[in-house]
């Protein structure tokens, strides 16, 4: 059981880190840009 929890934590952490590295939003967040100040092109 604990093995499964550890496995899941590892998988989720790796995936979130990978997606964050690919995300322009995460980069903006780290730079302190206010997301609400951007005029988004709604589609």
């Amino acid at each position, binding site marked *: 059981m604990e093995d499964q929890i550890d496995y899941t934590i590892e998988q989720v952490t790796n995936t979130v880190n990978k997606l964050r*590295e*690919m*995300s322009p*939003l995460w980069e903006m967040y780290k730079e302190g840009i206010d997301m609400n100040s951007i005029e*988004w*092109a*709604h*589609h």
Partner: protein
Amino acid sequence: MAYSEKVLGHYTNPQNVGTLDKNKQNVGTGLVGAPECGDVMRLQIEVDDATGLIKDAKFKTFGCGSAIASSSLATEWLKGKTVDEAMKIDNMEIVEELHLPPVKIHCSVLAEDAIKAAVNDYRVKNGLPVLKFEESVVH
């Protein structure tokens, strides 16, 4: 519907993830989509002043596997093209290459919009008029 092998390939091994200096005059940046819609793509091109060719292209995408794959593929296609050639990339070429199902066509549209936004940003920075194109209507 499962993702195609090509989408999975780009998702597990995305090409050209990164950031170019948006303040450089020969770098064009396109930011399209909206967080509430679930997809935001940023695509950047760096143009070689001497040759007029796109020498580098980078992307960062917040979205599904198809959105990541579409922008990854777009950056691969952009390298070596002129900005005029880049404007001619059609979203359906991306759909065909990645075998995107109908529900994921909007990802390719977003990639096309991102290319055009990046090219227009480059054009404005270099004193050229903005090129008009039909706004995407796929939701």
